[in-house]
């Protein structure tokens, strides 16, 4: 079954489901399953947001980032979280990835789609009553290969110029 045959609502349904599944993997620390969703050539970035005056143009700064990852570096990050001494997640925090406002546009290649979504990330650490949160937008390239969906690119744009989370031990 080729994705091109899908009616738009089916495509919307399918891609939204993939993003929900991805969030489920991340919320439940199924990081290896998560890595399987990513293409080997994935470009995974989180550029910085800066506060700028309108005349100075975009408030997204591509030059400097919070994440600047390849599949290989993401695998390394997952392997590290699997050690016994990645203290930031041992004891583990509780995480929730809420993904909404999924918009799909045709991609540059026939089997690729440009997918924009909003995220709200929530995290509960130890007995802290304060729940850390991070919101923003993700721009992905989703690719349909051999009957399987892959995330081929992700750019994460945080809303905050000063992140209100104490670290970025999570994936977004």
């Amino acid at each position, binding site marked *: 079954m080729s994705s091109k045959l899908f009616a738009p609502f089916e495509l919307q349904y399918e891609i939204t489901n993939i993003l929900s599944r991805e969030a489920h993997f991340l919320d439940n620390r199924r990081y290896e399953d998560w890595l399987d969703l990513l293409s080997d050539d994935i470009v995974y970035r989180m550029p910085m947001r800066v*506060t700028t005056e309108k005349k100075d143009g975009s408030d997204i700064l591509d030059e400097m980032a919070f994440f600047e990852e390849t599949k290989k570096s993401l695998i390394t990050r997952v392997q590290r979280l699997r050690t016994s001494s990645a203290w930031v997640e041992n004891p583990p925090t509780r995480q929730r990835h809420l993904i909404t406002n999924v918009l799909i546009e045709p991609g540059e290649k026939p089997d690729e789609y440009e997918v924009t979504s909003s995220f709200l990330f929530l995290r509960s650490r130890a007995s802290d009553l304060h729940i850390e949160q991070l919101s923003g937008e993700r721009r992905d390239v989703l690719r349909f290969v051999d009957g399987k969906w892959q995330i081929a690119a992700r750019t994460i744009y945080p809303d905050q110029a000063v992140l209100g989370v104490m670290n970025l031990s999570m994936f977004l």
Partner: protein
Amino acid sequence: MMRKNRIDDKTLQLLKDKMKDGLMPQWVVTDPDIYELEMETIFGRTWQFLGHESELKEPGSYVTRWMVNDPVLLVRNKAGECKAFLNSCTHRGAHLCTADRGNKKTFTCPYHGWSFNTDGELIGIVAGNKVYGEEMQKDEWGLRPIPRVESYQGMIFGNLDPNAMPLEEYLGDMKWYFDILLGRSDGGMEVRGVPQRWVAQANWKATSENFAADPYHVQTTHRSTVEMGISPKDPLYAGYGHQVVMKNGHGINVITSSTGRSHYQFQGLPESMWPMFEKNLSPSQVEVLSKTTVFVGGVFPNLSFVSPVHGTEGHLHNYLNFRVWRPLGPDKVEVWCWFMIDKAAPEDYKEAAYRGYIGSFGPSGTLEQDDTEVWARMVQANKGLMARDKELSYNNLCNYLMGFGGLEPDESFPGPGIAYPTCYADAISRSMHEFWLEMLTKDMAAVEEVRS
């Protein structure tokens, strides 16, 4: 009514006595009264890092910064000089410029329209003479300058105390190491983009010590890298080298290896750059740079730096990371993290070094993530009656006994400062504490002198 457990002469005397024994009362970590005192007596009087000259590329370039709670506008004026002003309109005090950075000839307050140029001069008042008359002297209402602004090796610092000692005198022996870190290559270092910023649960003293004075934490806090086979199994690995104590609470750890010489000459920097080091540095600075793997240290009170070597699959890279721990309360810091690299380095090297930085330090850094957890634990366990008891009835003292007594300086170390022959020592911490206390009690000492 007197509140119990306040800071008084007796608690300070007890603090001094314990410090003489290599101990630090646990209450100082997050005590709200000591925090208030620190803001006035330390942050109001010491040199604080504002930015690097490469962040202000041309006339009109500006960045906005904070000296704790004082908003600062750092701008390059028409003549090309870097100026720093209180980022607050002189009319009603509104925050003048809320952008992080940009380029402007004129800064206009959105409240009533008062406008200032890059020299801070008031150049425009809406309806000027019609409402204020001729007697309004515009030159009396310019932006208020940060009382002292001085720089060294492109690092611009501000000081709120007009009578502070000059920056170069304050940095003292640290200048020698700044020359290596910042002045080794032609054209010096450049900042990439803007600093990463995030808020950690931490006290500024703990984060400053963590970087300036504590390679001992590396083998445990960052043990995941040992588990991954990235860092050596030898628990002493971050201890080889010298811990150098300097005046005014500054310090640096010059980490080598078990042989006293790094496995990576000149921090693995491209050989094409080596002649620059010979040219820009003294022979003893070259010697230290050639043998060192990691420089990690700090300038009191809240500027830290690390210049490490990271290597994956035969590719080695080095970079420089400066960071300011901006206190937001006794248990909160806003971290400002700058990535810096030699302007003269090859472009592909710069890119690889940048990726190495993102993977290790900053909020997503696999090393720094675990630091943030530890910092949070330190403040969270420091708020109770036992930890905060100023009579110290519960043995509520932190241990700074590593290398206390018995550890003799190594006179053969080529750099200035007091160099101990290991980085696993609390010598820098103890010296930071001494300067911290000196700053805290300066006024009290003056009062005592008048009394006696």
